[in-house]
């Protein structure tokens, strides 16, 4: 009985699936005219096929979703990676310019310190000429030593050293961490000290 049912179910499926030969189709349709079991088997075959097709059709959707979500994840990671790389590049380039800016400021400071020093040296020499003309200097060395020195004598090298601003000494001594002020002038130190 069960075998008969399975047999008619299979035959009905093959009929619905167009898997029967023409004579088989004709024979089955003759059977459909009289056999209620065959008619019901055909209805069952169609039902089963529809349900299986629906169930199968849901599978690719799920696969597609997971595939697309994995693609989205991949794209997200790529975007994050690119953004991170860009950020690192930006930080690196800024850091480079920052460091180079510092070094430029330090070099400026050194140049300024040298220039300031030279200028003070020249001033000291010219002042020295005023106080001790060259034509007198040769023969009056001893008397010069006896002369009372002015506290503000610019020819005094000790005074020159003590008058050097801290930023200059820092630059000359090569302290890189000393904050630099690109707008400062050689006289700023003097002003602050006064």
């Amino acid at each position, binding site marked *: 009985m069960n075998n008969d049912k*399975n047999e008619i179910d299979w035959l009905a499926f093959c009929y619905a699936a167009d898997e029967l030969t023409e004579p088989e189709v004709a024979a089955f349709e003759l059977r459909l005219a009289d056999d209620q079991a065959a008619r019901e088997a055909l209805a069952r075959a169609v039902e089963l096929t529809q349900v*299986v*097709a*629906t169930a199968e059709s849901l599978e690719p959707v799920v696969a597609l979703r997971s595939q697309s979500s994995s693609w989205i994840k991949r794209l997200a990671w790529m975007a994050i990676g690119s953004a991170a790389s860009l950020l690192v590049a930006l930080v690196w380039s800024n850091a480079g310019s920052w460091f180079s800016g510092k070094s430029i400021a330090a070099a400026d400071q050194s140049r300024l310190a040298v220039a300031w020093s030279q200028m003070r040296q020249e001033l000291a020499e010219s002042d020295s000429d005023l106080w001790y003309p060259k034509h007198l200097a040769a023969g009056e060395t001893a008397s010069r030593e006896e002369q009372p020195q002015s506290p503000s004598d610019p020819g005094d090298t000790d005074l020159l050293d003590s008058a050097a601003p801290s930023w200059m000494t820092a630059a000359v001594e090569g302290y890189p961490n000393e904050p630099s002020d690109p707008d400062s002038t050689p006289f700023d130190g003097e002003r602050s000290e006064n």
Partner: protein
Amino acid sequence: MTAADDSQKNEPEKLDASVVAALYVEHGEELRRFLQGVLRDAQLASDVLQATFVKMSERGHQTRAPSRKAWLFRVAYNEALAYRRREAVGNKVVRRVAEESKSKQTGEPGVWHSNGSAGHSDDPLVRLESVQAIREALDELPPEQRQLVRMRIYEEKTFAVIAKELKIPLGTALARMRAALMKLRARLDESPDQ
């Protein structure tokens, strides 16, 4: 005897509408599937189903209650064969073939087993519980049977093509499919909406 009595006597007898409605609820879907199996066209199946129940309404009083289901199937089948012979069927088949080729181009499933929308969950004939039951049953199938079911029903390949692609004898392909269908059928019969 009055004129009213005469008119009542001349009025053709009809089966009570509530009986017809009850028959439709009980057998309508099964009949529709049967008609889809015969006609391979969901719209035609609906038309024939309607015509069948009109006949049941008009002539059902001549039938005995226990034989009404078989009567419905027989009338439906005869109506389907009549439809098939008409030119309208030819036109619809041409249209269906065009739709089939279109669906093949777009990669969507074909129409022979469903409402022109095989595999779509909004198919009124396919209930969610049945789909869930079949999905579970599909997952429990041996891989070779699962593959065959998918290739035959979802991809709509013929057994000959499947056997060639899988490099197995045609008889093996048929046997696998038959075994798979028996398991799926059993599971579908157990589902709550059956």
